[in-house]
């Protein structure tokens, strides 16, 4: 499943807008063992970045205690029409991106 993104399609200049993201990921902690005693290797998303017309507006570091399918919600100020880009980076070279646009009046 691709990432789920919720950014208002339109906003007034200066509005505080809520952005919601949810991406599918196992978030394997690296602390669990299989039935035969082998450690299940860690496989988590380690960081998330949101850019607004190229400039970083939000970043988060993620850790093993965060549940599968991380859901992040945050706020920013609608300054100009353009593009929000989202990037998730994780263990084993994991990388995933998504983008959406906004019209600011």
């Amino acid at each position: 499943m691709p990432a789920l993104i919720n950014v208002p399609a339109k906003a007034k200049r200066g509005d505080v807008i809520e952005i919601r993201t949810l991406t599918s990921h196992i978030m394997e902690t690296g602390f669990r063992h299989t039935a035969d005693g082998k450690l299940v290797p860690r496989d988590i998303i380690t960081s998330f970045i949101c850019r607004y017309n190229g400039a970083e507006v939000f970043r988060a570091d993620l850790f093993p205690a965060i549940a599968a399918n991380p859901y992040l919600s945050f706020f920013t100020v609608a300054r100009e029409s353009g593009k929000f880009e989202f990037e998730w980076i994780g263990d084993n070279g994991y990388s995933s991106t998504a983008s959406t646009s906004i019209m600011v009046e």
Partner: protein
Amino acid sequence: MNVPVTRRNAVLGITVAATSLIVPSILRAQSAGRIVVIGGGFGGAACARALKRADARLQVTLIEPNKTFISCPLSNAVIAGLRQMEAQQFGYDKLAAEGITIVAQAATAIDTQKRSVTTADGTAFGYDRLVVSPGIDFQIEALPGYDAAATEKMPHAWKAGAQTLLLRRQLEAMAEGGTVAIAIPANPSRCPPAPYERASLIAHYLKTNKPRSKVLILDAKDSFSQQRLFETAWKELYGDMIERIALSQGGRVTSVDPATMTIVTEFGNYTPDVANVIPPQRAGRIAEIAGATDATGWCPIDPVSFESKLVPNVHVVGDACLGGGIPKSASAASGQGKACAAAIVALLAGRAPAAPRLTGVCYNTVAPGYGFSLAGNYQPKGDIFAEVEGGATSPVDAPRELRAREAAETERWFETITADTFG
């Protein structure tokens, strides 16, 4: 044995003497105790009946505004047109005949200091012990847009009665090819598997009458009770008629707009033709009036006596209590009502109540002649009820004969529990 006389036990001795000589002579002249039960559902009615049967001298008063009880169990079959509403209705005549005083009023105020309940008509009822079994109310503030008027356009049908029939009529009126959305809240909620049974039976109605239509589940949960059984049955019986958007797919409903029939989730908007919106829940309002609810909106209890942890001499049973591992169901409420009655009888006699062993049973019918079940055993463990060994769920791979047998058992279970409570 020589016990040194101290100020403390000397005083105690006087108290004991006073109690044993004077108070009992007053008590003997009266009944064994006054119990008021608020709420005549599976929990309250079972409790009232068990109290009176345990000790005929108890004055048991059951306060319930509705003269007819309408059962939620099997009401999904009414929505799907497989059952008549009349089969869901029960009266309190048999309870009255056993000597229980039935008061057809709403309880509106409780004074836990004076131990008195007041009803809407202003009558006050004193009690030694109060049992509160009000079922659920909705957390309307948790679902913006879902006010009283919205329930007429987007029925919850989560309290059986007019809402059940409204949803039924909306399904009948829907055009072929339409979408029926079911919004499901997170737990704790009344009867956790029931929304999925409802989705199944609505799909059965649509497949039979409007086969191009769809059921869309918008779910605030990722996993649910008996999920594999449901999903296997859906595939087998209904192909892709039922679509489910789980929590991690953005299924949690955050608000509704009845004017445009819009259901808003965290990641999208939906405009179904029929919207069955089941809002988040909490204990029935009177539990809050009693002061028995905590920040969760539910009632913490001592799992042995069902006595509230917040107010003395008030017991809470059924959906309203925090039952730990026990899912909120008619079967659990009935068991809790009876166990609470036994605890009250023991407490009134000055004995410690015995730890109850409870069983919860849940039957699901996904189509006529296709049922499965879950049974669990529960015992007090520390502060709450914990599930213990001996539970069983129907196998996922089972022949249709077993499903047919379990569907027939569902009917027998219903006849048994309603006869036990009201018959």
